[in-house]
C-alpha cells in the first residue's frame, strides 16, 4: 500500500486543491467490506426515540460490536492485510482503550501475540477487556502515548506496529460502517462521528465520497479536546494547547496528525464542538429512550446531532462505542 507522507498545508490554504489531497482507494474499502464480518458484526441502525430533536436522528450502534466499539473493523482489516512475515512477529498498538481491544482480538484470531501501550486515561472496563483478550498492557501518560503514535515506535514495544487510525487499511476497515449506513438509510443527509485520531469519521466520509458524495460527514469533538475544530479555523493541522482529560476518553486528541488532516480537510464538512454537559445529556437520553449504553465518545456524536449543527433532515450519529465503567455511567445518567 502506498504510504504518503504529507506535510501540513500552509495556513493560507493557498495550496492548490488536490496537490496533497489524500484518498483511500475505494477498492480497498470494498475489499475490507468483504472480510470485515470475519471479526465484526453488521450493527443495527435505529431511530433515536426523541421527537423534540432538530432533525431525524438515527443511531449507528457500533457499541454493539464484539469489543464494544467500531475499532474491530479497522484493526481486523489492518492485521489481515499485513504480510504474513510481519504478522508472525506479533503486533502492537497505542490506544486509549478501544483500538487496543480491536488489535488484541484481531491478533487473537490470527494466533499472534499482542502488546499495547495504553493511555492512563483508559477506564478499568477497557483495561479488563484488553487483558481478557490476552494482550500485554503497558500503561503510559497520555503525552508519551501521543508521541509514540507520531513516532510509530516505543522502546518498550516490539513486533509490527498497527497504527490505531492513520493508515489506509485501518481507515478502509472503518469505512465499512459507512457502507452499511447507506444500505440501511439510502436517503441519509448527514453523518456525524466522534473525532479522536479521525479514523472513523474520515473512513465513513471516504465511503460517502465514493458512493454518495452529497452526504455531509461531520466530526464531533468535546470542548476539552478539539484540535480539529481549531485546525479548520486555522486552515492547517493544529494541536490543542488547553487539552484536558475527561470521562470522554475515547475521542479528543492533543493534535490532528498531518496525514489525517490531508484527508479530513477535504472529506469532512466540519467539526462540531460540544460541551461535556451536552455529552452527558445525550448519554442519558440514549440510555432512557433507546436502552443502549454509549461511552462519552459515542454520546459526543449524538450531542452534536441534537445541537442542530449537523443540519436538518436525516442525520446518523455513530455511537462509536459503549465502553464506560458502569458505575461512572450510572452516576452520569442519574443526574437530572
Amino acid at each position, binding site marked *: 500500500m502506498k504510504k504518503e507522507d504529507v506535510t501540513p498545508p500552509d495556513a493560507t490554504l493557498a495550496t492548490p486543491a488536490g496537490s496533497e489531497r489524500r484518498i483511500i482507494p475505494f477498492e480497498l474499502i470494498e475489499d475490507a467490506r468483504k472480510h470485515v464480518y470475519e471479526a465484526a458484526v453488521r450493527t443495527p441502525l435505529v431511530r433515536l426515540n426523541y421527537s423534540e430533536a432538530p432533525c431525524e436522528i438515527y443511531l449507528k450502534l457500533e457499541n454493539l460490536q464484539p469489543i*464494544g466499539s467500531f475499532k474491530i473493523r479497522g484493526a481486523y482489516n489492518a492485521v489481515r492485510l499485513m504480510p504474513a512475515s510481519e504478522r508472525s512477529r506479533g503486533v502492537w498498538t497505542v490506544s486509549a482503550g478501544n483500538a487496543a481491544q480491536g488489535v488484541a482480538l484481531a491478533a487473537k484470531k490470527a494466533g499472534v501475540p499482542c502488546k499495547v501501550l495504553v493511555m492512563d486515561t483508559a477506564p478499568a472496563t477497557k483495561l479488563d477487556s484488553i487483558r481478557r483478550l490476552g494482550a500485554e498492557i503497558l500503561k503510559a501518560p497520555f503525552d508519551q502515548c501521543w508521541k509514540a503514535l507520531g513516532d510509530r515506535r516505543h522502546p518498550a514495544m516490539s513486533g509490527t506496529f498497527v497504527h490505531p487510525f492513520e493508515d489506509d487499511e485501518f481507515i478502509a476497515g472503518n469505512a465499512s460502517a459507512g457502507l452499511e449506513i447507506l444500505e440501511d438509510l439510502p436517503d441519509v443527509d448527514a453523518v456525524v462521528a466522534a473525532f479522536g485520531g479521525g479514523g472513523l469519521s474520515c473512513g465513513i466520509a471516504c465511503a460517502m465520497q465514493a458512493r454518495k458524495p452529497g452526504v455531509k460527514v461531520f466530526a464531533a469533538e468535546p470542548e476539552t479536546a478539539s484540535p480539529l475544530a481549531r485546525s479548520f479555523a486555522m486552515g492547517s493541522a493544529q494541536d490543542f494547547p488547553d487539552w484536558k482529560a475527561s470521562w470522554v476518553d475515547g475521542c479528543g486528541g492533543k493534535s490532528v496528525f498531518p496525514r489525517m488532516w490531508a484527508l479530513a480537510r477535504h472529506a469532512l464538512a466540519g467539526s462540531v464542538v460540544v460541551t461535556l454537559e451536552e455529552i452527558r445529556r445525550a448519554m442519558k437520553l440514549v440510555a432512557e429512550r433507546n*436502552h443502549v*449504553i454509549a461511552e462519552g465518545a459515542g454520546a459526543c456524536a449524538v450531542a452534536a446531532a441534537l445541537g442542530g449543527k449537523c443540519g436538518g433532515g436525516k442525520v446518523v450519529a455513530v455511537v462509536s462505542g459503549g465502553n464506560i465503567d458502569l458505575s461512572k455511567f450510572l452516576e452520569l445518567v442519574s443526574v437530572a
Partner: protein
Amino acid sequence: MSTPASVVPEVKLSDFQEAAKVVSGFAYHTPLLTSRLLSERTGFDIRLKAEMFQKGGSYKVRGPMNKFRHLSHEQRERGVICSSAGNHAQGVALAAGRYKMRAVVVMAKNATQSKVDATRAYGAEVVQHGMIWDEANEKAKQLTVERGLTYIHPFDDIQLITGQGTLGLEIYEDFPQVDVAVVPIGGGGLISGVSMALKACNPRIKIIGVESSDGPGMKKSVEAGRVVTLEKIDCIIDGLRVKRVGETTFSIVQRFVDDIVTLPDKEIFDAMIWVMSHCKLVVEGAAAAPVAALLHGLVKAPSGSKVVCVLSGGNVNLEQIKNLKWN
C-alpha cells in the same frame, strides 16, 4: 375455573402470520444481536432478541396490536382499559393510539411518576387508585362496567398471546437454525406466544422458561398440574412478580414449554448488571432472567447449540440501581 390441558386454544402458524401482518405495521422487527462473551462463557452460539428496542421499550405493544383488531366496531368506539404500572400500560396505550381508540390505565397511587407521565404521553387517560395492583385492578373492573370499556388482561388472553408470539416468528425468520429459546415468565403471556409460534415453525426447537425462585408461580403450577396461587411472593422484579399465572398461559406452557428453571432475584439482578456492563444494553430485571439462567449453567443443551435469549424490555429506573446494589 381451570382449563384442562387438552383444550389448549389452537393457534396455527397462519394465525401468527396474520397477527404479524398487523403487528409489524406498527411495532419494530427488533434485531437479533450477538454476544461474544456470553457465547464464550456458555459454549453456545448465542443471539439476543433485543426487545428493549421495541416501541415503548418492551415486547408489550405486540399483544394489544393483535388483540384490538378482533374488537367489534362498538368496542373500539368505547375504548379499552387495563391496570398496570409497567410495560402493559405502555403497550396498551401505544397500540390504542395507533387504533385511534381511547385507553384508560389504572395505576396504584404510588406508581412511579415517570411511568405515569410516559403512559399519558402515549395518549392514555391515567386513573390512580389504591396502593397495590389488586386494588387498582378492582377499580379497573369497576370502570369497565361503568364506562362500557373492554378490559385488556396483561397476559391471560389468547389474542394477546398470539400478538406476543410474533416475536417468535421474527426469531425464526432471522435465525432458522435456532435450537433453544430462553424466555422469561411472569404471567406467562410472552412464553405462551413465543413457544407456540416457534414450535409451529419447527417442533424440535426447545423452549426454556425462566422464573424468579422468589415467586415461581408457573413452575409450581406445572408441578401441581393446575394453576396455584402463591401464598407468599418475595420476588420484587417488575414483570416477574405474579401471584397467580393465567389459566390459558398455564395450559399452553404445560404443553409447549420444555423446562422451567428458576433463580433468586439477586442472581437476576447481577445478570442485569452483567448485560449492561458487557453487552452495552439497558435491560430491565425480567429481561436479564434468561441471561442469568445461561450464566448459571441452568440451560442444558449440547455445546455449540444455537440459543436465543429473549431480552424482553429495557424499562428500568437507572437512578434506582446507581450504587449497583439490589435494594
